[in-house]
Structure formats: structure tokens, C-alpha cells
């Protein structure tokens, strides 16, 4: 019989959550289909405790995904068009980079020096001109569907690979910059953990990570003991998956709170002046209040501590008018912080295992509008991919002379997403279960863009 019917219970028990057939049959006993959350968590925990590496083929152990909210002007950053008419090329001059023959815009001074460690995709393309639709396309690998919201990369990774140590698998910095960075049709158990505070602010503290006032470690231990006592009666009477799932999150919270190293990963206070300098965290040049560096640095610390996917949202790029004024401080801030991140990761030997992405929901119109702005443009735009199995010093694809259309090697959202999952050791063709027991492939009809791979 055919096995490709959405709508019915064809649950693909993947290698990463492989239960025995017996478990599986058990799972669907009376009307319920598929693994429940609690069962999935137990299988993941079992898998991790009794087996070798979960992802043998994975080049990328983790992802730092920098999301530039609003639509990032490709021609004013990674894909300058100095030969285009002035109303297209804009006011920024091109500069050379560490890759011969490759130019960036003059706001990208620092990143130009690490271009040899990056792949610039100059031919990203999709068809959605609306912010939300563009976000859904870029974060999930699916065009928006009227019937279903798809899960973001981080949520899929959380679902497939679970947490590593005490750290949550998926963290957003400072908060989710888009509703489509969430868990979509998957349970919100796979939604991102949000810092809830901006690391760039003085007095930055992650919400709820520290004991409340008046509760020291000893008292917190006593509270735990009280909770154990109180829970006993109900647990002895009631067995339910919803309860064990809640308990598993209490366990996760406790192991995080009990691990000084994990908690420290959220802080920045023990970073050296040198590192802060590298990330451009102190005011410099025209940048009076830099904020990219602190966010990127927290992302690196989180990844070091075991987080699988960190999505950092930075900036406000939706410059429909006064475009150049809008980007004149945030672009250099991004530039310095990003170059710092890349150098730092590389020095620490982390770049090869950390996939770093800069994306946006789309690019901006090739021609500057009457208000000095640029509007939404998804037909071609640039993204950056680096580390985690991505080629170094490479330009993938090309736009035409006006930065208006793909001239070479279009990269579709499906192929982009499939490539990332491939690097993470996740089979993008695998089906996950959406509500109504409809299996959905992680990505449909995507292919690995092998030219991106190292």
C-alpha cells in the first residue's frame, strides 16, 4: 500500500528516537496515535544514556542563527553593485575582502577581514513579500500554509535531538524575534527558551534563573524537599503522561539550576576586556550603544555549554524610508560583532562544529524609493553561512547586475533548510507528526546544496 498519505498514522520512528516495536504498538493503544511527549522524552533519555553519539554524521554540533529582523539589504552589505546606476547601487562604496575578487559594502569593514572563513550566498530566493510569510519561509523551510504552521529549525532540532546536558536545546536571544521561531505544529515543549532580557543592557539577568530574594541555596534545597513531600500523594494515585511530562521539565529546570557551569553560560561578567573589545561591546566610533556583540557573545557561551540552536535577533532593518540613515549605526555594530564572533569561534576551535548563519526574511528592493528607502525584496538576497561543515571563503550563487534577480545557482528555502539539517545529521525527509495524525516531512522536496559543503 502507499505510505504517503498525510492524515493517517504513519509514524516514522527515526533512528534518533527509535523505540522497540513493542513500545510503538503500546503507544497507540486506545485511539491515541504516535508517541506521547512523555514517551518521546523517555526514549530520548534512554537513547542518550545507553548509546554512543546520537548524530554520527553531524558536522555541525550546534547552530548560531543571527536573524536580522525586517529584511536585510543585500546590496548594501554582502552583494554590492558598484556598477549599477546610483539609484540602485546606493551611497556605500565597495571594499575588498580577504577573499580576492570578493567585495562587501563599506559598512562591512571587519567582516571583510574574515570573509575567507565564510560562505556568502548571494542567490537566496523565495516568493513571499510579507514579513510574516517571509519569516515562515526562512525559518521552517516551508512556504506558509493556510492549514498548518511548521516548526522552526530550533524546535525540530529540540524534537529530534533533545537537550545536551543541563542546557535547553533551543534558546532565543533576547526573545523570539518572530512568531515563526516557535514550535509550530509540534508541542510547545519544543518551543525555544527565551532569555527574556537583553544581554547588552546593564543589569542583564535571565528571567527566573536565580533564586528569588530571601531564598539562598540551602533554603532552595529545603523547598525542593518540601515539593518532593507534597508531590508524593498525588503521584501514588495518578499516573498520567501529562504529569510525567511536567515532572520532566521540573527535572530539566533543576538540573539547570543545580549546575553552576550551565547557569554561568547565561552570564557575561567573567568575559575578558579583550573579548569584549573583540565583539565590539564597548562604544566605538559612531556606535554609542552597541548591542550585537553582547548577544553574539552570549550565543557563543550557550553553544559552548551545550545548547544546540541559538537564534539571536538583532536590529530593525525594515527601512522603507531613510534607508541609509537607518543602517548607518546598526550595520557597523553587526559587522564588528559578527567578525568578532567568527574570529572567537575559530580561535577556540569551535567554528568547525558550530554552524553560524546570518539570515533575514528577505532582502530589499534594488532601486531606492522616493523616500530614500528600500522596500521588501525576496526574489534575490544574501545570507551568510559559516562553520559547521560549510565551505570557507566561498561565494555561492550570484544576483544580476542590479541585485534584482538570481543570475546563478538559486538557493531555495527547501534546499537551504535541507542543507542545514544535513549538516546537523538530521534526515530532512523524515516525517514528524502534526495534529490530526498527519505526518509532515521536516522539509519537502529539498536537496542538499552540496556546493555549500566543505
Amino acid at each position, binding site marked *: 500500500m*502507499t505510505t504517503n498519505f498525510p492524515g493517517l*498514522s504513519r509514524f516514522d520512528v527515526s533512528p534518533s528516537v527509535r523505540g522497540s516495536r513493542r513500545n510503538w504498538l503500546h503507544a497507540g493503544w486506545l*485511539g491515541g496515535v504516535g508517541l506521547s511527549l512523555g514517551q518521546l522524552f523517555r526514549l530520548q533519555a534512554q537513547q542518550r544514556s545507553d548509546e554512543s553519539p546520537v548524530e554520527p554524521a553531524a558536522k555541525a554540533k550546534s547552530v548560531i542563527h543571527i536573524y536580522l529582523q525586517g529584511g536585510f539589504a543585500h546590496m548594501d552589505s554582502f552583494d554590492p553593485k558598484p556598477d549599477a546606476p546610483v539609484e540602485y547601487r546606493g551611497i556605500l562604496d565597495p571594499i575588498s575582502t580577504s577573499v580576492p575578487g570578493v567585495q562587501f559594502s563599506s559598512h562591512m569593514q571587519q567582516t571583510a577581514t574574515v570573509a575567507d572563513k565564510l560562505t556568502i550566498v548571494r542567490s537566496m530566493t523565495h516568493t513571499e513579500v510579507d514579513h510574516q510569510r517571509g519569516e515562515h519561509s526562512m525559518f521552517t523551510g516551508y512556504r506558509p500554509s493556510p492549514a498548518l504552521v511548521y516548526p522552526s529549525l530550533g524546535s525540530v532540532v529540540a524534537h529530534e535531538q533533545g537537550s545536551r546536558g543541563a542546557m535547553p536545546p533551543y534558546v532565543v536571544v533576547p526573545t523570539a524575534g518572530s512568531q515563526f521561531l516557535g514550535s509550530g505544529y509540534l508541542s510547545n515543549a519544543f518551543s525555544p527558551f527565551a532569555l527574556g532580557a537583553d544581554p547588552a543592557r546593564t543589569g542583564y539577568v535571565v528571567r527566573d534563573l536565580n533564586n528569588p530574594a530571601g531564598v539562598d541555596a540551602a533554603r532552595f534545597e529545603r523547598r525542593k524537599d*518540601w515539593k518532593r513531600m507534597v508531590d508524593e500523594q498525588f503521584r501514588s494515585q495518578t499516573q498520567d503522561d501529562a504529569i510525567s511530562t511536567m515532572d520532566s521539565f521540573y527535572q530539566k529546570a533543576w538540573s539547570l539550576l543545580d549546575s553552576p557551569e550551565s547557569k554561568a553560560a547565561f552570564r557575561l561578567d567573567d568575559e575578558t576586556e579583550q573579548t569584549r573589545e573583540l565583539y565590539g561591546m564597548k562604544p566605538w566610533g559612531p556606535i554609542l550603544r552597541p548591542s550585537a556583540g553582547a548577544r553574539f557573545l552570549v550565543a557563543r557561551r550557550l553553544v559552548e555549554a551545550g545548547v544546540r540552536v541559538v537564534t539571536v535577533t538583532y536590529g530593525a532593518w525594515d527601512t522603507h524610508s531613510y534607508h541609509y540613515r537607518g543602517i548607518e549605526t546598526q550595520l557597523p555594530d553587526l559587522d564588528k560583532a559578527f567578525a568578532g564572533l567568527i574570529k572567537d569561534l575559530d580561535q577556540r576551535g569551535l567554528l568547525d562544529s558550530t554552524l553560524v548563519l546570518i539570515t533575514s526574511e528577505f532582502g530589499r528592493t534594488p532601486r531606492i524609493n522616493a523616500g530614500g528607502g528600500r522596500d521588501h525584496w525576496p526574489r534575490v538576497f544574501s545570507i551568510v553561512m559559516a562553520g559547521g561543515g560549510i565551505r570557507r571563503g566561498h561565494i555561492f550563487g550570484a544576483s544580476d547586475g542590479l541585485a534584482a534577480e538570481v543570475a546563478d545557482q538559486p538557493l531555495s528555502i527547501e534546499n537551504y533548510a535541507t542543507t542545514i539539517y544535513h549538516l546537523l545529521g538530521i534526515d530532512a525527509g523524515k516525517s514528524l507528526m502534526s495534529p*490530526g495524525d498527519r505526518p509532515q516531512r521536516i522539509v519537502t522536496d529539498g536537496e542538499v546544496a552540496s556546493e555549500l559543503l566543505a
Partner: protein
Amino acid sequence: MKILRSCILFALCVPAAADEPATGTLTIQPPIISLTDARDWQRVLVLQKFPDGSTRDVTANAEFQLSDPAVCQVENGIFRPLADGQCRVTVRYDGSDVVAMAEVSNATMIPDLRFRSEVLAVLTKSGCNSGKCHGAASGKDGFRLSLFGYDPPGDHHRLTREFPGRRVNVSDPEQSLLLQKALGNVNHTGGQCLDEDSEHFQTLKAWIAEGAPTDPPEAAIPTGIRVFPEEAIFADRTAASQQLLVIATFSDGTDKDVTDLCVFLSNNDAAAGVTGDGVVSANGPGTAFMLARFDQFTEGTAVIVRPGVSYEFPKIVAANQIDELVFARWKNLHLLPSEVCSDEEFLRRINLDLTGLLPTPEERRLFLADSDPDKRAKRVDDLLQRPEFLDLWVMKWAELLQIRTVNGLSSKGLLMYDRWLRERVHAGMTIDQIVRELIPATGGTFENPATSYYQTETTPQLLAENVAQSFMGTRIQCAQCHNHPFDRWTMDDYYGFASFFSQVGYKQARDPREIMIFNAGTGSLKHPVADRTVVPAYLGAGKAEIPAGADYRAVLSDWLASDANPAFARNLGNVVWAHFFGIGIVEPVDDMRVSNPPSNPQLLQYLGQRLAADGYDIRPLIREICLSRTYQLTASRNESNRLDERHFSHSKVRRLRAEVLLDCLNQVTESQEEFRGLPRGSRAVQIADGQTPNYFLTTFGRASRETACSCEVRTSPTLSQALHLLNGESTSGKISSGGVVERLLQELQDPLLVVGNLYERCLCRQPTSREIEAVKDRLADGRDVREALNDLFWALLNSNEFLFNH
């Protein structure tokens, strides 16, 4: 064959013997075997039904006797025509018999092959036009078919005309790529899909040899399918397999056995699986739904596999009709229900479900002291009269209307919209009356706030989708782009329904914050594939009669929330049920479709009928639910219902939804919250705007009301929730700001009395003796008693027993 007539005859066929034979009764389906051309054939099913309700397929061993063997022949339960006429068929098995009729007409006429119902059916059956193959929106390897064949003319064009002579080569049929690819003779990503000597392959070949004709306009088209048997109950997992039979009816009144052309699927392989030929076999105890798909039709049949252990239904008394219907289901499944819950459990559960608040220690004391045997009913009646009950349902309706700040809806407009709904609910208006005021609303959004419904969504498509999902429990979104593969909805249905909203007019009112909604009286939608204008049609109920000049929406609303549309009452019944059981009879509640059948169809039907009879007043139904034994079961499971999640044989533990949890935290800690636009001390369930910023509500999964989907309310846990309860201001902060422990210590003096009060206010029970001992131990360590009691309070708020309704 006429289905209706066959049903009557079917009833006559059941042996009239007074005492049922121990071997079970015999039935045959279909009771009239109608063969209408030389190529026609018909399979029959002979079913034995045992006194305990289980069934067995005995077709293979049954003996068939024909009164006139010249009319037709039967082999392996399959009838084929010989000559025009009628004959009586007597079926014998195991000492019983049953009679059917065979009717043969046009026995010598060989009909032309039909593209849609035969050729395309082969492609669908073989998986060619599925979503992952050529049915994908962009096709596969350069060849596209419409998904599951929703566009026969388009498919015919692509097969025969897109590359003339290539896919289909009428001058040399063998060389047609369609055949070569299907056999895997040439490189084909999908590999070999058909055997050369299969009947399906021969159909394709014959069609090409005949010149690959399209269907003439007068050709009969399929109008529906029926799947038999209607229910199969396997005694246990080792029971013999059951063949399915699918009969399609056609527009010319004929029918055809299309079992061989159907795609079969089980929605729960763990209970029972089905082969491509439609043979069902039991895998394990449980229920499964077998789906058959032919042409644009999906229908199913229910299968039960019993656990196979000895079963006796307990001596329990049904409190009302709901219990009767639920008990019947348990009997069929051989499920044993849990016990009835204690008064304490009942009181906590009913308070949370009806008012969204916990019973106070004083209420608990009074309830336990009451010796009236009807006290549970009294409590239900009391709570149903409270304003908190209405607040809860205003919140639920507001979610269906998606009341939130969006599309420039001003805060004034939003508050007016909320007040419009709130006033009506509190004034006793029922939801059908509210919907009938909402859907045809015209005027300014300030003048008539109901018009704000047309500001929260503005396209006919989205409005139609939301109305279908909110008020009919049906998701039609799929049919926007292709016929729904697992439901009855076609693109015609979709655009027909959306057309009701194609004439909504918008203009700016004098106040810049106000928008006027009016009937533009012009505008229509086009069917994107057929490229023709669609006229408004009720979802599942045909074209609408629209008087000249009438507002389409008024015509829709007269039908939508009325007895003419049973889906409205059924959906409402399911929504109400899910509120009290944590899971719908159809789950998710707003996803009623053929392939997602109700776990208890009779119960769902009853709820709908009851609501319609009560004029859509939900209170009598809620009263019946709350007084049923089914609702009053404990959450503790037994060996028999340990794994049951769908049949209500025990109470389902449910995490309190975000708003209710926050209100309960405030209630027990005696603290207050401030929400935008509401006076201090208001409850979270009273919030007007789904977008009101609040960390707690967002973290605990309240509906942001961005879509009409019931999936927006999320109660699954997250790390942020656990951290917030452990460290956040909602527990520790409220405990200290409320000062409950300090006050109680002062009033009661004895710390153990304070402990009792804390347990009562949070968990609606006294601590057990073991817990008292444990508390005493902890209090005896010489530390500050006040601090210790605050820590106990904190632990109670962090306990599952508090966070869940059970």
C-alpha cells in the same frame, strides 16, 4: 442499486428467528447485487455477528445457492453477470442462512472505459498522484498530476497533450511513457508501480489503445462511496481478518464495486491494519478507523479490537443519557471504568470547570458537611448561576471570534467589541443568537461593534475558513488549493463557502479609528482551477437561494446557526464536552473530518440534538454532563483502562489553562494582578484583548487569538514554565505580597492548622496522616516556622496536584 431500498431489504434479510442461535446471526452486504453491464461485477460480504457483539467475516466459507444460475455466477464471493434477469441468492453458513437478490441488466453491453472513474482511479490507487510523487504542487521529475486526481480534465491534458505522443502514444500504446515508467522498464524515481499482467495495467493499456479518450460530457460521474461492513468488532487480536467492500454510486443511478480501485488506510495500525486490497487484520486492543478513498470521496468504517480477556460490565447505574451512550461504548470495547471520585475531588473539579476558581476552605467545609444525597447537583446548579461561569464562556467565545488588537483595531474598538460580546452572554443570549448578530453585522465598528469581526480578518477566504473552523468544527483550508484529500471538501465547496464573504465592503468612518462595514452588493470569487465564477454554497448543504439584493452574509447566518446546519450544534456540543473532559469526542475539537472520526458518534450526535432542542443554551447540557457518572469518575486508572485516552473511562488530568492558573494563584495567595484596560484585582479570564502583554499568560500558553484554531491554547509544559514556578514572582512573590501564612499564623496560632488551611485552599483536601507526620518532622528542625510554612505553600503551588485539574 438504490441505497435506500437496499437498507430496507437489508433489515428484512436478518433471520426472524425468535431465539438467536449461539453461532450468531448471518448478514450479507450488499443485500441487492446489481450488475448493470458486461464488465460489471460485485463482491459480497457475509458476516456472522455473535451474541456478545463481535463479528466475523465468513464469506470465504459460506455456501451460495442461486435460484436461477443462468442469470449470474458466483465465485469466491464475487458475482458476475450472465444474462438479464433476477435471481434469489441463498447464503448458508454454520446452520444459518440469509437471502439476497441479484439483478442483472445489459448483460451483453460492454461499456467504454472511463477516464475519471477507471483510468485516473488506477493512477490514484498506484500512488502516482500522491503528494510526494506527481501530485506535489510542482509535480515530480517534470510531470505533474493533480493531487489525488482533483482535476481530471487537467490530468487528461497533461497526460495526452502536454507532450503529444510521449506520455501517451496512441499509435504505439506499448511505447507510452506512462506504461513504461509504471512498469519500471525505463528509469523511474518511483520504481515499478504496476505489474504487466495486473488488471490495473491492462486498464491503462486498453485506454491508450482506445485512443486515450477523455470522458464525454454525458458520462456518469461518481457521486459517493459506501464502505462495508459498517462496523467490525474483533473478539481479540488473533481473530480472523475482515475484507472491506466499497461500493461507488454514479450519477446515472448505477453502482460499482470499486474495492479494487480504492486506497485503504488505517488511522491506528496499533489496533488494526489494512492491506492495499482492503483486508483488515487485528493487531492489538483498541479502536481504529479504516478509510477508503475513491475518486474525490473518502469514507470509513470503524473497527474495534477487544482485549480478549473475560469481561463483565460492572453493576453501575447510568445517571442520564450521556452515561447510557458512554457505557455502550465501554461495553463494545470491553473497557472497565474507574470508580466515582470523592466529594473533595468532585468539588475541586467542578469549581475549576464551571468557574475557573478553586473552592475556598469554607465552601469545602460546607459541602462536606452537607448530607443531602443531591448535593453534587445542588453545587452544579449553584455554580451555573455565578457570573464567573459566564466570564469563562465569554473568554471561550472571544477566542472563537479572535478578539484582539490587530489590523489597526483601536483599543476603543476592541473594548467595545469585547463589551458587545460580554453584555450579550451575561444577558443570557445563546451563541446562535450571537452568531446571527455577528455574521451579517453592518455599520461602523463603534456604532455596531460586531462588525469588528470583519476587521480582525479581511479576506473572504480567511473569513470563511474561520467561520467553518469556529462554528462548524471543520478545517477547510486544504481545499483552498486542492480538493481535501481526507475529507469531503472540494475546491467548489471552499470557494462556494468563501463567496458568502465576497461582497463585504469596507470604508473609513468619520472617526479615524472607526471602519464602516457594509454590503457592497457586488463581488465574487473565481474557482482557480476551473477559472469560473463560484456562487455561494453552504458548506456541505448545497447552493444557497439568495434573494436579489440580499446581503450574502445574512443568508449565510440564517443557515449557519440554525437547525438546518447540524454541524453547528455538533461542534458546539463537542466544544462544551472538551471543556469538561480535556479532550473532544472529535479531537482536535475543530478538526471534524471523515478521516478523524468521533470516538463515540452516537454521543456526539446526542449532544448536538440536545443543544438544538435546548435552543443552543449550553447550561442544560453542561448540567447533564456534570451530573453524569462519566464526568464524576476519578483520575485513578485500573488495569483495564490504563491506556485509554479517548473513551472517558477515567477522569483526564489537565493542566489548568494559563488564565485559570494565574487566577488560582492569585486566589490562594490572596494577591491581585493588574491587566491593561482592567481595574486592579480583575481576573485573567476577563481580559478583553488576546494580545494583552503578560509574561505569565504567554509562558503558560494562552491563546493569542491570532487564528481560530483550538490549538492556540497550549497546556504542555516548558522549561520556562518550570523555572517561573520555581523562581518567579508568581509563586514566591505572590506568597510574600499576599501574606497569607503570616495572617493565618496570627489567626490560628497552631502551625498545623495553618498547614491544613494551605492544603485546603490549594488542593481542596486535608493533608494525609503521613503528610502531617512529614510536616511535623520538617517543622521540628528548629528553624523559623513562618519561613517553613511559606516554603510549604511554595511547594503546594509547585505541585502537580495544584497545577492540574483532576
